[in-house]
């Protein structure tokens, strides 16, 4: 599962986009992990994520789940995914995790230099890294890069390019705001790592460049 790895966009925009995962390892530390994961989730809440989901739920914070439901749903083997729109938030969470020392795997997905910088600042030695080497093959058939900035925020591809265009059209014709449009796009993402703040920013920038034509 590499659903957060290949987010696209400018460096400037990606500076405000970090996905964070709490990940018990199957066959190693599932047993008894639920209270540990719950404590880690409390730390995440205090650091101010902009979206979140537990794998026990099928919906994220923008598709009808309340924060306390995430906490209540955690059981043995639950993994929790979240996203932050600033460097300080992710640093705060990692600091809290380090102090809690629960021994559960954590992964941060974002600009490599930025994440390593944060790790250094709080005295963590990264263990493994998975780096994105881009998209290959018939790339000429992909939707344009500006649309992919949205669709790749749900790495599983649940946010369709046509939905992005539809939302842009609805904003342009005055039916919804950029924020509400962003929430429409966040809904299908079943992993809770769609960043609605970054998406609203991108919609603000992009909508003037598009017409209201249907397809």
């Amino acid at each position, binding site marked *: 599962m590499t659903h957060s*790895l290949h*987010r696209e966009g400018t460096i400037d925009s990606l500076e405000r986009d970090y996905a964070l995962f709490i*990940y018990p390892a199957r066959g190693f530390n599932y047993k008894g992990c639920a209270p540990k994961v719950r404590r880690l989730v409390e730390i995440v809440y205090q650091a101010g994520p902009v979206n979140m989901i537990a794998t026990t739920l099928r919906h994220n914070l923008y598709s009808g789940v309340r924060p306390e439901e995430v906490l209540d749903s955690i059981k043995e083997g639950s993994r929790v995914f979240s996203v932050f729109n600033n460097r300080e938030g992710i640093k705060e969470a990692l600091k809290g995790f380090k102090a809690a020392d629960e021994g559960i*795997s954590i*992964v941060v*997905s974002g600009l490599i230099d930025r994440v*390593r910088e944060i790790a250094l600042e709080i005295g963590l030695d990264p263990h493994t890294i998975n*780096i994105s080497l881009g998209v290959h093959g018939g790339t000429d*058939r992909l939707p344009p890069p500006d649309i992919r900035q949205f669709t790749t925020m749900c790495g599983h591809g649940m946010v*369709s390019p046509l939905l992005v265009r539809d939302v842009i059209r609805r904003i342009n014709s005055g039916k919804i705001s950029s924020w509400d449009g962003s929430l429409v796009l966040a809904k299908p993402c079943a992993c809770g790592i769609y960043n609605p703040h970054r998406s609203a920013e991108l919609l603000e920038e992009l909508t003037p460049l598009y017409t209201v034509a249907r397809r």
Partner: protein
Amino acid sequence: MPVIDQEKCIGCRSCQTICTVDAIHFKDKKCKIDPELCTECYVCFRMKICHEGAIETQDLAGFYKQFQHVLSDPVETHGVTGVTGRGTEEVKTNDVSGRVKKGEVGLSIDMGRPGMGVYLRDAEKVAMACAKAGFKLAPQEETPLAALMPDLNTGKLIDECLNYRLLSVIVEGRCEEEKIKDVLKALMKVQHEIDTVFSLGLISRVDPDGHCKALEYLDELGIPQPHRGKVNPGLGKPLSTA
């Protein structure tokens, strides 16, 4: 699989915007799902997009149909690996599990992503090209695709599955650091032989000085230098001897 009840459909076309791979077509004032293109991701169904209740699901007939759905719909849990999404933990738990060891490099070749979909015949081409170049494909306990791969040494898939289309599937495995250049070379060649795209992730243990040998080859192979990645900061307690 999802189907549209033609009696109930009023042809409003709302469902078309939500379909992840543009598999819903409008014809004779109604929408229909093209079974050839549909990846069974169930987004149209789960999002309750149709106000007329015209989108329904039918039983998934047989193993391959179910495989297609489980891999395309991230809320499903894969039966063998027990993991949601496309069913693999890859390096997210590497600090605990030690799956990728020092001196090894892993690859996660995310076929069909972003948003294009992939026929398993194209996943086979990529797996076979990598295996031939010395890549050790991951076994069933680690990654779902291996369930369709009777011989991990060749990467050949079971013939019956080849024409199924998934939203995405990962070809995954690892090799010794010295072999990675050959594997990446093979990938840069096979990319021209497939009818889709893949997003490429390279997995490596972190050197104290931040060095990763594989990065030295990228310029030569025409692969852009990376700026995004997923870092496992080592907060998990090692429970493997690797």
